């Protein structure tokens, strides 16, 4: 009955293309603008938080952790208020995850502290017996890459209009300025940490990955 399509390969291709585009357009386009609106008071990621987020992505923590609290009592009891669309407005990419091998982290900053994270990343089984989370010893050795942080901050500011430098939002700036801001933030975190090597590194003007990772997790509220 549709033999004419089966004899004309370009027509077949065209018919397929039209058939498959409809669903996506109907479901994604109408709510696009609404979805991109930030909630009131949402701040862009500071230099050190952004560095932590880049490490989170590099390590694919989202392979085991979600950042999406669903509107059920069992979830709000465990993790806190359910997630709102506007909280993700500056998340490029989104990090909802698809498998909770470990717990949700969207509001982890409300109930875990810097020194807890420090011990946990050295060896999760130090604080959580039977945990299957990997150890991340290299977080204590590698330095934060402020060059990529600078590049991302300037990119999202100029291209996507993320409101850096407005009101009391974090500042953008040159690579040197970004690094200087990162160092100030790092000092705040490091004073609560125990590892001496991290403190020594900071004194030399170096920020280790672990510091940025914790800054990011502490922001998640």
């Amino acid at each position: 009955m549709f033999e004419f399509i089966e004899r004309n390969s370009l027509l077949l291709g065209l018919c397929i293309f039209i058939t498959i585009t409809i669903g996506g357009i109907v479901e994604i386009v109408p709510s696009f603008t609404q979805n991109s609106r930030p909630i009131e008071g949402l701040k862009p990621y500071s230099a050190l938080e952004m560095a932590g987020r880049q490490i989170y992505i590099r390590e694919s923590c989202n392979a085991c952790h979600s950042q999406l609290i669903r509107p059920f009592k069992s979830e709000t009891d465990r993790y806190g208020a359910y997630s709102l669309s506007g909280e993700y407005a500056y998340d490029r990419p989104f990090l909802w995850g698809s498998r909770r091998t470990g717990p949700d982290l969207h509001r982890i900053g409300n109930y875990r502290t810097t020194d807890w994270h420090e011990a946990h990343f050295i060896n999760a089984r130090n604080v959580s017996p039977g945990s299957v989370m990997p150890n991340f010893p290299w977080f204590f050795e590698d330095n934060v890459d402020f060059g990529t942080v600078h590049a991302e901050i300037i990119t999202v500011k100029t291209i996507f209009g993320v409101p850096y430098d407005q009101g009391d939002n974090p500042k953008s700036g040159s690579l040197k300025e970004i690094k200087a801001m990162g160092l100030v933030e790092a000092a705040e975190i490091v004073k609560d940490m125990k590892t001496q090597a991290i403190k020594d590194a900071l004194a030399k003007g170096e920020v280790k990955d672990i510091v940025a990772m914790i800054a990011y997790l502490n922001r998640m509220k």
Partner: protein
Amino acid sequence: MSQTASIPDYDYSVAKAFTISTLVWGAIGMSVGLTIALELVFPQLNADLPWLSFNRLRPLHTNAVIFGFTLAGVFATWYYVSQRVLKVRMVLPAVGKFHVILFNLIIILAAYTLLAGHTSSKEYHELPWWLDILVVIMWLTWGVHIFAMLGARKEKTLYVSIWYYVACFIAVSMLYLINGLAIPTWFVTQTGNWWHSVSMFAGTNDAQVQWWFGHNAVAFVLTVPIIAISYYFIPKQANQPVYSYRLSLWSFWGLMFVYLWAGPHHMMYSTIPSWVQTLGMVFSLVLIIPSWGSMVNLLLTMSGKWEQLKTDPIAKFLIIGSTFYGFATLEGPIQAIKSVNAIAHFTDWIIGHVHNGTLGWVSFTIIGAIYHMVPRMWKTKLYSERLAENQFWIQTLGIVFYFSSMWIAGITQGAMWRTTDQFGSLAYSFLDTVNVMVPYWALRAVGGSLFLIGFFMFFYNIHRTIRGAAAFQAQAEAKSALDSGSAT
């Protein structure tokens, strides 16, 4: 051999290269899968090395099996099937060779970048922007070959398999390009890593675009081209035509239309609009109809030949493959029902479901197809049917271990997360729910090991078949010389 004069002399060079790629990437990808399964049981196994840790290996596993193994299998069958159903010798052999080389190069580079932690974090689309560009070139190369073959064809009416290959090409082009949109940051500031980029979409929108891609990558890489394979190899193996042309037609257009709407079931109870979630659920349920249409059509192609299943391991792989397709396409929609999803989402039940599809349906179908193709391409006979038969049973047992452990694990954990005591407080800490998982994860690793052992048997069987080809041909020639000698 006299009938061969009427059919073109096929060129299998590219199909052979892709067949070998399928075997190699399958073995690597599945071994990585077993490694991460074991790491959940023995977390120390990663030796505290970044590139051995679960988080870096998991994307490597998914990419190696979805794009390395499955796509190589799809391409291998394309270069074999297209010549036969279009009744024309492979055109543009240089394009085909370029395709296979670029494909393998991409997978090697992908493995390197993923281990190094260069990732976009988007599931099944982790590759950095510069590799995305190579992927697009590789994909378009295939497109050029598809349409060149279609242009040169001698058989005017396009067989069902061809519709599905064409659909795979078109849909993946669209999905991959849109989901991959990103700004490489180095070009903006000339600072930082050159491979880093930021997604064009943010937050909820990014999620919607990603799962529109992610869901349909499953559709158009792990389903549509595998149906193409089944529609060619099942009738060939059974030696009779497809059960119903009309059923193929309606299932095809039904699948094309409905699939693209079902993506939101990956984001139930998330921050996407609730009408989109409902629409996603309804379309997921409707999806049963075209999926089962194909399954029934493929299975009934065996009508009157069911006896063959007793003796023919290749038919077993293909038919059980399609049966798993029916199973997975019923399980998926059930998980998409919002109230079921509330428990199933974020648990291992989803992982189990995916493996019903990828082990039972995708791998079995590709294995069956390769068993069918290799003796014909290398002009020889299979090294050992018994080995194939044993492989089939070991792998089937492996899948059963896999999905049954993941069912129990998933539903147990989903239920424990929401269990409350008599005062309405949560009954279990998160860690409690992790500790309960460990025995099921161990069982899953047993299932995975069985499947992998089977895969190595397959590897060996094909290896011996190919290696024995020259000897087989020499023997056949000697025999025919002898026969013709005695005739005169």
